[in-house]
């Protein structure tokens, strides 16, 4: 009976592991134009409990340097107390703080991209961080879904 139990457990773990394999990049396409999508993104970030830290206007810098580009921004955000605690407890995580989403126009539509934080799990093996990365992934997915549905 124990063997059966062990076999079932192994199969269960394998099945869950296969189901849980993560994508490297989380991406969403919004049918709305850039400005509307940008507004929806900022609203979704707030609704998910995060604070907007800064918007990097990549396109402005490119245009000022003479390059032709569509609208392109990077939005930085985080939960203040969480960023403070993580940067204190795990200073080697600081280069990845705060969270960020790139948003850029593709014709009349808008694309949004975030790196899946779960990709950091292999490098930052503290189980506490693993749980944080998993939660960030869910939050990023919720934010991207909200922008997708906001059109």
């Amino acid at each position: 009976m124990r063997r059966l139990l062990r076999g079932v457990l192994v199969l269960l773990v394998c099945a869950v592991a296969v189901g849980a394999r993560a994508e490297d990049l989380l991406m969403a396409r919004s049918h709305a134009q850039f400005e509307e999508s940008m507004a929806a993104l900022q609203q979704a970030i707030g609704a998910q409990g995060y604070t907007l830290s800064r918007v990097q206007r990549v396109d402005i810098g490119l245009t000022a340097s003479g390059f032709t580009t569509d609208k392109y921004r990077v939005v930085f955000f985080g939960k203040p107390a969480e960023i403070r605690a993580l940067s204190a407890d795990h200073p080697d995580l600081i280069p990845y703080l705060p969270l960020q989403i790139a948003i850029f126009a593709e014709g009349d539509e808008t694309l949004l991209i975030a790196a899946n934080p779960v990709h950091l799990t292999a490098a930052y093996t503290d189980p506490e961080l693993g749980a944080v990365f998993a939660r960030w992934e869910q939050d990023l997915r919720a934010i991207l879904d909200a922008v997708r549905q906001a059109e």
Partner: protein
Amino acid sequence: MNRLPRCFCFLFMLVVVGHAYAAAPDGARLYAQHCAVCHGDSGTGGVGVPLALPGFQASVDDAYLHETIRRGRPGRVMPAFTRLSAAEIDAIVGHLRGWRKNTVAPTFATTRIRGDVHKGAALFAQHCASCHGDQGQGGHGTGVTFSRPRDLPIIAPALNNPGFLAAASDSQIKATLMRGREGTPMVSFLKQGLSEQDIDALVAYVRSFAATAASAQPATAIDDEPAMLMMESPYTLEETVEAVKRAAVGKNFRLIRDQILEDGLFPAGQQNTRQVMVYFCNFKFLYDALALDPRVGLFLPCRVTVVEREGKVLVMSINPKRLSHLFNNAALDRACDEMYKLYEEILEEATL
């Protein structure tokens, strides 16, 4: 105790049934979930190629589409969807075909076409290399936003890519060479004056890329690379920030700003001022990187963070080589290798 095994069995059945349910082959749903973000909801293209293009649909068979989804294009952005079952992939292919109901999907024989490889090499250099690259490595970049004008729907595919070579039969390659691909720059080489024998030679030459295709695979795995670069500075935080700025400018970067990590997160006066991010950019490099893959702006502009902690000053950055693996883009890997060296040099110079 008897309850425990029953409980596990129940859980196991739940997982199995859950997976079976998730695998229900609904092509439209699967396409929306996995493909639409790059290829567009109706296959008009974007970061990915326009799958609904009639000329494309008329020149590839279902087996090609199936294998392309399964294997992807290593190093050419299109990921391998290894988690999808054969039935799910077939459902996606069915969905793609639904866009062009009037286009009859071709079927191609899988038999090898014999041809003179040496003659094919000469013909390739003369007729194909200008678009597909001298080694069949394909056109540069991806995405409509930066790398190609909107009136050009497609980038010349990488014919030496192991994913392409596994997906495309000789007959399909031959048919494309003979008929061209309407709506793209790919013309009919019969109409260009080549004979069928010439075209067989070209097919044989393209097939010969398979011998070197394995080298297109990434040399290192993502986990071989550290997540970040870090060095200790012998200077104060303020001195180190200035040293980072000087080093970045010395590498032809333009300073964008320096900012406290907690800026925007806490009111001024309540922020930890001993974590300073220095942002800098080389706009030519940025533009070129975005042309290779418009998604890479996610990790730009460049940033080095200087942190004072327990009497030590640390200088750190992301590791571009590790992050590049997320994009499945060999051209971007090369740019990120260059960026890695620049980050290393900046960190070294700032802490000398």
